[in-house]
């Protein structure tokens, strides 16, 4: 039985996914890693414990992956979303322990809100993960980012683990955290964690522009400004309860609450003397309760169920400008009332899946998911949209000697209802998403894999029901992906390894949803007009070697090539141009050295030139950039307490750069973390 105080936490619960293969008893991180890879034919890119701890946040960890472009609006509170293989962030599903984090309003998942604390691994599956007992939704995104919680480990029969930590650093940032893990006599494990971040978010940046003249002279300006209204205060409380009966069943529930208030500094643009650029604010309240239950029924069948309830409330406050002092005489009244907009997203999700090993070589998976989303807002003449989605999926997996393959058919049926005038109307959209995946192990250390997948992303509530735009028959965005990859373990021994993973792919994005002016050009509407053709490749090389039991060096290098062309309109200047914000070349490099309890990670990111529009003219070019980060950590054991010290130096070269046009990124910054556990 649960202790009674847990009842309060049950309001906010969610659960880590456990595959049946996970139930091999070991709670170590290694087991957690193995469990996720096992059964998945597509080999993901993955960052695990050590490297994960050296990252300064989830978004920074994820952007190390090949094929990923992080869209970062800068600063502690700036929105951070991922775009995989040029398909747009709406095509990437983010899953926490196998259950998707989504919102029907804009399909944007802000990675800046997630803590690395408690995560065991982060994996990126291009195409999709294929493993037994997957829910139908796990097949639906063009690519999937999996955040997997680390299972609590109780050393030497301990019943309780405590971790207290605090971080402090640039931008006046303070981030305390606390974790309590408890092992119940019945075998269930409870983890309660809480954390907060407070930061004024201010940083200096350069605004500069130099131009070259025909006579060879150079003229321009370089001035320093400060990012204001970029503060954030956030708090997170989570509770997770998990239990497992070896070889029979397992379940978990996970409650999550996140609240934040932040300034929206907006883009940097010229503003007359005494005006603030932006005083706009955003307040968020996100909560979810999710759970998973899995049961093996004999040797053939196993079943899983997942459930999730989520709620999020966003309040956006738009402040009118105060007049500059030179214009506001003594008679000027106090500042005007701001405009406030509230959005409340409600979602309920239920999934049931069954898996049968019908022969030693064939496994069948069937899954049915249902979700209901509802968006409430105080916008004028709002449509109050509701959406009932149903994913039905059948999948067959073949395992024959060195050959693995899977074929999946997913049917998504979406029924929207919305207020139109005084009565509610409805609209239906449905799509069929087929995919095939294979892996062939040519030898002990060489395997080939590939996939073909057609996936769709539904128009969001914002695409369809935002009051100032309208839509004529908006179809889902259509993404077709073809991929061929190779995984080569060049060298592997007990003391180290060297492996190379390379992929070449071809993507075609059609019916891309874009906003264009209507017959009255001051009103905009959403249309399926965009078309993008992508040819890309990714190469990741990973090596490490142990010099002694405590001394290790390693390196991971990742390179991405994306030739992503706008094929929307042959008559336009944008025809066949590289699409906005996608560099042709980008990459990252991570170097690791560990000795005597010390660990040093050095990470470099390189991004080539990009354009803010598909018309690839010099005026719309964004400069290439390179950043260098370092993280140094040291673990100590003092009379039963484990003490970890960590110093992270970000953007060591003080590179002034922008990922999103007019949103400057911070220059050099640092952070110090201290945590002790017992």
């Amino acid at each position, binding site marked *: 039985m649960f202790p009674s105080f847990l009842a309060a936490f049950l309001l906010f619960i969610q659960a880590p996914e456990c595959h049946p293969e996970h139930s091999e008893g070991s709670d170590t991180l290694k087991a957690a890693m193995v469990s996720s890879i096992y059964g998945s034919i597509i080999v993901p890119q993955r960052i695990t414990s050590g490297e994960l701890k050296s990252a300064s946040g989830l978004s920074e960890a994820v952007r190390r992956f090949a094929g990923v472009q992080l869209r970062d609006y800068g600063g502690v509170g700036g929105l951070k979303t991922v775009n995989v293989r040029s398909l747009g962030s709406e095509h990437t599903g983010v899953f926490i322990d196998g259950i998707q984090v989504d919102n029907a309003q804009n399909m944007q998942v802000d990675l800046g809100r997630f803590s690395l604390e408690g995560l065991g691994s982060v994996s990126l599956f291009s195409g999709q993960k294929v493993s037994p007992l997957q829910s139908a939704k796990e097949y639906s995104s063009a690519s999937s980012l999996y955040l997997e919680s680390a299972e609590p480990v109780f050393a030497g029969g301990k019943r309780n683990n405590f971790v207290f930590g605090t971080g402090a650093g640039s931008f006046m940032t303070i981030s305390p955290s606390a974790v309590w893990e408890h092992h119940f006599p019945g075998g269930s494990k409870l983890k309660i964690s809480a954390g907060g971040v407070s930061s004024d978010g201010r940083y200096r940046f350069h*605004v500069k*522009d*130099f*131009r070259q003249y*025909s*006579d060879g*002279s150079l*003229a*321009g*300006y*370089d*001035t*320093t*400004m400060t990012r204001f209204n970029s503060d954030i205060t956030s708090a997170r409380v989570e509770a997770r309860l998990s239990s497992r009966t070896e070889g029979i069943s397992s379940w978990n529930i996970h409650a999550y609450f996140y609240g934040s208030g932040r300034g929206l500094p907006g*883009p940097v*643009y*010229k*503003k*007359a*003397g*005494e*005006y603030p650029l932006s005083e706009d604010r955003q307040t968020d309240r996100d909560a979810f309760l999710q759970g998973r239950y899995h049961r093996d029924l004999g040797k053939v069948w196993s079943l899983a169920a997942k459930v999730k309830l989520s709620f999020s409330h966003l309040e956006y406050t*738009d*402040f*009118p400008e105060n*007049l*500059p002092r*030179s*214009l506001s005489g003594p008679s000027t009244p106090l500042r*005007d009332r*701001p*405009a*406030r907009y509230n959005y409340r997203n409600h979602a309920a999700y239920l999934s049931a899946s069954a898996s049968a090993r019908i022969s030693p070589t064939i496994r069948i998976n069937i899954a049915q998911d249902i979700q209901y989303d509802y968006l409430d807002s105080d916008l*004028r003449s709002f449509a109050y949209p509701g959406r009932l989605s149903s994913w039905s999926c059948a999948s067959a997996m073949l395992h024959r000697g060195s050959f693995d393959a899977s074929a999946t058919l997913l049917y998504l049926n979406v029924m929207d209802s919305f207020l*139109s*005038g005084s009565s509610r*109307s409805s609209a239906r959209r449905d799509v069929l998403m087929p995919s095939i995946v294979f892996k062939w192990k040519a030898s002990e250390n060489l395997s080939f894999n590939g996939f073909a997948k057609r996936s769709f992303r539904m128009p969001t509530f914002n695409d369809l029901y935002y*009051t100032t*735009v*309208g839509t*004529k*028959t908006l179809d889902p965005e259509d993404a077709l992906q073809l991929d061929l990859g190779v995984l080569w373990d060049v060298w592997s021994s007990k003391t180290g390894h060297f492996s190379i993973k390379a992929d070449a792919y071809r993507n075609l994005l059609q019916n891309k949803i*874009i906003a*264009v002016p209507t*017959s*009255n*050009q*001051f*009103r905009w*509407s959403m249309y399926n007009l965009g078309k993008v053709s992508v040819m890309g490749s990714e190469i990741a090389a990973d090596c490490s070697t142990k010099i002694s039991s405590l001394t290790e060096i390693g390196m991971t290098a990742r390179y991405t090539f994306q030739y992503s062309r706008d094929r929307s309109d042959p*008559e*336009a*200047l944008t025809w066949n141009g590289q699409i906005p914000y996608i560099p042709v070349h980008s990459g990252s490099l991570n170097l690791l050295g560990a000795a005597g309890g010390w660990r040093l990670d050095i990470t470099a990111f390189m991004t080539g030139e990009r354009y803010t*529009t*598909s*018309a690839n*003219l010099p*005026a*719309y070019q964004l400069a290439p950039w390179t950043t260098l980060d370092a993280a140094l950590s040291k673990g100590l054991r003092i009379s039963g307490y484990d003490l970890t010290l960590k110093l992270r130096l970000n953007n060591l070269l003080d590179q002034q750069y922008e990922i999103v*046009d007019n949103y400057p990124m911070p220059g050099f910054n640092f952070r110090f973390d201290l945590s002790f556990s017992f």
Partner: protein
Amino acid sequence: MNRCALLVFSVAVLAVAAGCQKSETTSRDADLAGVNVAVGEKNGAFRKLFVLNEGGFQKNNSTLDFFRFSDGNYVSDAFGSMNPAIVQGLGDTGNDLALLNNKLWLVMNGSGYVHVIDARDEVHVASIAIPDPRYVAFDASHAYVSSYNGAIYGGDEKKGKVYRIDLKTYRIDGEVEVGYQPEGLAVAGNALYVANSGGYNYVHEKSVSVIDLSTFKVSKTIEVASNLHFLVYDGYGKIWVSSYGESSWSQDDGGNWVQSMSEPMGLYSFTTQVGSGSSLPEKIGDVHVMCMTRSADNIYAIGNAAEMSGGYDNTLYEVSVRGGSVTATSLSKTDAAKVGNPYGICVNPENGDIYIADADYTGPGKVWCFTKDLKLKWSAVAGMLPAHMVLY
């Protein structure tokens, strides 16, 4: 304050840079090569066609281009090239461009500035801070700038203002409250006429405010039509004002959004004697106005003739301000069929050439030059959202 320090620093940088680059910044803009788009018209009365690109919302990429008649070259971002040390260039969302006494006035809506530059070489002369400025008009001694005055969509309803700027000192020396979200304005005699849109209000404005220039107070308010925008004086006693129209969106049973226009983007006129006796504002035929300009004795406008039915039929209207006749030419049957989103129009009074600014919403726009019979003369790639043009 940081902001103060910043300002001082910017000025210092500017001064140093200007000093270092003296030879460049004071040289005439003849050094700016541009791209050759046409054979020159050396003998014309005009030297340049200025094009103000609005730029994207809060993108800080508003630029000033010009087409040089002597060599047929189109020069992009001339302001930036001639004033490289001015921090952040022109700024954000250039909403109006006007010429007076060899000076160009650029109204930067997003940046809250009105810039004055020398029309001969694009060198910066002065900048005046005005909140949310929209359009500018002149009399002999002053410039008048309409302003939203800090109103925001969804906030409290807040009336706009007109600011008066002394042409000698470039300082604000007067302000007067007008209707909600004032737009176009024009001086006729001793009065200033200001079109009020009320665009942020649930129910739009319908009026033109008339300001007596000797007292700088609103002397009367004339009800014309809903959601007014462009306003010009024809020099013959008539004010011409356009409406953005009224539309609503609804969804049909299939979930498709349907736009229904309840009032067109029409053109109206009234005499400056309005209200005295029989002269009430009148609607001008079947004219649709997305952009308009006055050239000699004509009003030229481009609009969508099929807007009421939700279709597309971009049409050029030529309205004689003296006779009142309306000539409508559908662009689809001419070389101008290539124009995607007509966003600004300018007409050469000398030869009748029609310049159309064509805004592309995903990339840079274009400027097209057609003869008066809509035969293509040349076209050039402009900046983002080219919109406002002036002949110099």
